[in-house]
């Protein structure tokens, strides 16, 4: 086939969008939207990397901070939420061997997240609303710096994403517990107990082991989804609070900013944000590792009951660790700093360490394995968290936090290595694994390009985090601009690694487009021919 033919129709014309079921189409839409927003985040990240070397004259500082505000939100909500929600809405029914509860709701989830992300991104781009994702009170309501109208659009976009999130939560739990038409009545109470890990916990102490009604990956998804729901509640509530101030300002009323206690608000908001950072990310990732390890090896998971119980512990831990973000807040009670900020946070070393060990032990039990794309990206994801979690535990220490807080150390070796190497490589592993299932056997265009994708992403991600970390240890702050090239050596090296990440994404995107063809990409967004709830076509 010629280059143009492949570009239009995909590798060997194997991908036929007409053959896709409704669920396959929805899942692929989530993935495409997620990858497009990942592209947004990578380009924004690259702009900021260049800016840290030399402020770009065409981008004024207020625009830079608008990019800094949008970047993590586009990355987490627009990209990660889209890919994760799409994958889980497919995998939960796939693993439970029953249809999804509502296809319509899954579609609306995709629309709300896609549109919501575009609304807050464009509101930030146009109005330069830039209180950062932390929204430290009263900054989001400081209308001497930001436009109330722009801010109202921004918050509305975030709220739309949260509405989509709530629909996802409902769909996941209903799919686990409901009884499909014509089926024998499902024990919804027992299914919920199993999904939340209560059975796994009691099995550790019981003589007679209870059978698990849901598989371990579904249990992990269910537990992570609890944190997703709580987080959506916190963000929606906070969004409404900020909107009240914005509407007041638009109508000419100056509501007193001091009505809200800044420290109480910070506690409240970090409690909610940590449900993403320390809750659903770690739980979803652990669950995805378990699923990938069992699918790659075809073996049972090592120490399954412990893994189930650890997920339950991680859920409780994620509700009680928020204070590690307030170790530099002098008014925060010392007891909260020590217990929540240091000791409970240290549990994450244990729970994530267990997930790391269990996954490696499961892979080991099936050696020799072939170094496929899913395996190599899974190993990359494991390495990412093995590097990033200890970096986080170090900064969650009262002594070290005094000299690390808000430096590039936090955002480099901890956040970016966790998200770019740990989380994203885990997601890439899942995408490579699910690709033939979701496309009814389409063939990857080039294995060589996949190898470039892997190495460029791994070296770029770890390298960028490392150089940011070195700058952080030398005192370089995050959330500010250096105008005199104070940290240029590290920032140039970090920018070079960042460009590897950009190249890796472009290579991957090109490889996928060439695999399914432009017609295939467009075909994903047209209506499905078969209007049933099957996950894959019956003949497959």
């Amino acid at each position, binding site marked *: 086939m010629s280059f143009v033919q492949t570009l239009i129709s995909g590798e060997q014309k194997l991908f036929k969008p007409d053959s896709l079921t409704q669920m396959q189409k929805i899942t692929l839409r989530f993935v495409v939207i997620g990858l497009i927003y990942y592209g947004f985040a990578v380009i924004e990240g690259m702009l900021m990397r260049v800016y840290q070397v030399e402020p770009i004259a065409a981008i004024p500082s207020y625009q830079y901070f608008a990019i800094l505000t949008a970047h993590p939100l586009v990355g987490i909500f627009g990209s990660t939420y889209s890919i994760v929600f799409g994958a889980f809405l497919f995998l939960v029914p796939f693993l439970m061997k029953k249809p999804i509860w509502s296809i319509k709701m899954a579609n609306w989830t995709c629309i709300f997240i896609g549109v919501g992300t575009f609304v807050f991104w464009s509101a930030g781009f146009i109005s330069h609303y830039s209180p950062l994702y932390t929204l430290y009170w009263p900054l989001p309501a400081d209308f001497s710096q930001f436009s109330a109208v722009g801010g109202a659009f921004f918050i509305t976009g975030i709220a739309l994403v949260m509405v989509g999130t709530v629909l996802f939560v409902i769909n996941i739990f209903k799919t686990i517990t409901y009884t499909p038409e014509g089926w024998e009545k499902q024990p919804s109470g027992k299914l919920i107990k199993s999904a939340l890990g209560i059975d796994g916990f009691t099995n550790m102490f019981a003589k007679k082991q209870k059978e698990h009604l849901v598989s371990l990956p579904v249990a992990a998804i269910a537990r992570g989804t609890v944190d997703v729901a709580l987080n959506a509640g916190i963000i929606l509530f906070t969004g409404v609070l900020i909107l009240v101030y914005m509407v007041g300002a638009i109508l000419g009323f100056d509501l007193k900013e001091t009505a809200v206690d*800044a420290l109480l608000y910070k506690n409240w908001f970090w409690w909610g944000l940590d449900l993403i950072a320390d809750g659903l990310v770690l739980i979803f990732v652990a669950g995805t590792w378990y699923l990938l390890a069992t699918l790659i090896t075809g073996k049972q998971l090592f120490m399954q009951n412990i893994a189930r119980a650890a997920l339950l512990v991680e859920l409780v831990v994620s509700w009680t660790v928020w204070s590690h973000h307030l170790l530099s807040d002098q*008014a925060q009670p010392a007891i909260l700093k020590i217990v929540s900020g240091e000791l409970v946070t240290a549990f994450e070393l244990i729970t994530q360490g267990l997930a790391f060990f269990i996954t490696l032990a499961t892979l080991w039990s099936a050696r*020799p394995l072939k170094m496929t794309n899913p395996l190599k990206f899974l190993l990359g994801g494991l390495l990412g968290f093995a590097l990033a979690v200890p970096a986080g535990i170090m900064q969650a*220490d*009262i*002594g070290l936090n*005094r000299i690390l807080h*808000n430096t590039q150390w936090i955002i480099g070796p901890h956040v970016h290595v966790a998200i770019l190497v740990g989380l994203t490589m885990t997601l890439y592993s899942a995408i490579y694994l699910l690709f033939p299932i979701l496309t009814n056997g389409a063939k990857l265009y080039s294995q060589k390009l996949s190898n470039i994708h892997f190495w460029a992403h791994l070296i770029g991600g770890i390298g960028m985090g490392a150089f940011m970390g070195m700058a952080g240890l030398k005192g370089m702050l995050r959330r500010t*601009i250096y105008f005199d090239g104070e940290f240029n050596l590290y920032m140039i090296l970090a920018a070079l690694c960042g460009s590897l990440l950009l190249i890796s994404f472009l290579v991957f995107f090109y490889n996928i487009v060439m695999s399914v063809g432009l017609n295939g990409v467009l075909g994903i967004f047209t209506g499905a021919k078969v209007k049933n709830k099957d996950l894959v076509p019956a003949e497959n």
Partner: protein
Amino acid sequence: MVDSSVVLAGQTLAYTFYCSVIILLMIWFGVKVTSEGKSTKVSPRVFYSFVVFLAVIGVSLHMVTFNTIPWVSIDVNMKKIVADRTFEITVEDHEFKLPSEKLKCQINEVVKFSVTSNDLTYGFGLFREDNSMVMQMQVVPGHKNDLLWKFSKPGVYTIRSTEYSGPKGAAMIVKDAVEVVETL
């Protein structure tokens, strides 16, 4: 009191060593798991030993830093310590308002930086001439933001806001604002 740069050097060493070990371990695992060989089950004993190892590491990190980093006990027992010198600083409209043009103190005395914000959440950090950080804290409006510190050597330090407070916050720098001398 030990200078914070010494603590940072120790951390750099420890983390670099850990990263090298874990990267080598993953390379070894990747090679071995794909090489010819018998599939073997990992003993639960190894697993439980690993759990104990993680618990020991997690807890001992904080015990070690509590006993070796001097400002931790000062921080935790702040209410019981009487400062030798106090600097009252106000922040408003993205500007630090200092009690005098230069804040002078001497080494080994307990200095209290008491910073009040009248509007937004800011940060308060001291930086050396090479831009490395001595220490920092958050400055939250409506609350007391006090930080006790003992300088171990003479020097001149710059104050900089370490928290984002809007685009204007990047310019919140007071150069050479704190001077530490042997004796006043």
